[in-house]
């Protein structure tokens, strides 16, 4: 119990540090939830040409995202020639691998994809803190036990995952039209990994 308390305190200190380090000014929470609107339309197929850079390797494919119903997204990655590499179902409480190519069936990789894609598609996120900085409203939420900061101007511009007082992963949404983010970059800072997505529909 004592260790749990100590680690909770440590967590609070370390999370507080991100906001302090980046000079975020705390404000009262105005909305219970922060919404990511980019994958919220069930009538839309979201199809992106993906370019993945891992260290010196570069490879591409198509990332296909579909909202099946509230709190339920399908995330599929195929090669340009149509071969399925993985197929996940992501709900608010569950993560299911519908298919993954044998060569990619590694726990570490699946966990990385799970945390990234859950943060990418999750629509309703419970706000635990609210800040402002420059022209941004910043909302803190927790996804799979990790702190995420949502930077909102006229629209959701970026999500930053933090850990140990540092920025771990950036999700950048640009070229936004009718609630569709035509360009998305997911950039990891602790490993040399970047996923660039360009809408093709």
């Amino acid at each position, binding site marked *: 119990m004592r260790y749990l308390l100590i680690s909770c305190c440590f967590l609070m200190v370390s999370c507080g540090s991100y906001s302090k380090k980046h000079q975020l000014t705390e404000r009262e929470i105005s909305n219970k939830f922060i919404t990511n609107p980019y994958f919220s339309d069930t*009538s*839309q*197929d979201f*199809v992106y*040409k993906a*370019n993945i850079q891992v260290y010196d*390797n*570069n*490879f*591409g494919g*198509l990332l*296909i995202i*579909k909202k*099946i119903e509230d709190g339920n997204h*399908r995330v*599929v990655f*195929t090669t*340009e*020639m*149509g*071969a*399925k590499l993985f*197929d996940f179902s992501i709900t608010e409480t569950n993560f299911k691998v*519908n*298919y993954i190519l*044998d*060569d990619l069936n590694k726990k570490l990789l699946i966990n990385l994809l799970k945390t990234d894609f859950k943060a990418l598609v999750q629509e309703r996120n419970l706000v635990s803190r609210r800040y402002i900085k420059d022209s941004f409203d910043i909302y803190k939420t927790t996804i799979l036990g990790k702190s995420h900061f949502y930077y909102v101007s006229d629209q959701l511009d970026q999500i930053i995952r933090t850990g140990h007082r540092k920025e771990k992963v950036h999700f950048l949404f640009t070229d936004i039209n009718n609630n569709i983010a035509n360009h998305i970059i997911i950039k990891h800072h602790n490993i040399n990994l970047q996923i660039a997505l*360009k809408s*093709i*529909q």
Partner: protein
Amino acid sequence: MNSAEADALKSLVKQQAKTTKTITSAFTQYKHMDFLSNDIVTKGTLHFKAPNLVKWSYVEPFAYSVVFKNETLFINDEGKKSHIDMRSSKLFKQLNSLIIKSIKGDMFNAEEFIIEYYKSGENGLVYFKPKDKKSASFIASFQLTFNKQGDVEIVKMIEPSGDYTKIVFSNKELNNPVSDALFTN
């Protein structure tokens, strides 16, 4: 299709495959997944030169080309070039050989596939179901539609889930000169 019709189609396709030295064709690819509202449609050009040079060039809605040459896969992804050595991957080797066979239609190997013959209007429709368990885990069946000349018009690759990739060829030209230089990426 009765067995005489099946035999006639088989020998027509084999004869056609033997005399085909080059293929140039436009193609439209439909990726069907049950959960999507619409198929994902991509378009491009295919070049084939016997015995084993293949280039798929996607032009719409993105520029992407892939060359299968000497057991290497050369990729040009909107200007970003990379290659994969197929010798290290049995999967890629198998894929390459299946692609060449399916372009030519010459997949009538009873050791590899369970083969079923159907009619589709005036065309022949043949199902090739891989016997090998590993292949069957990617593709439940290849369905090739042949025209009266024994040419492949449609290749449909059906996954075990029922989702499929369908490639429809158009403006196909056989045995026109195709330069080796085309198969660089």
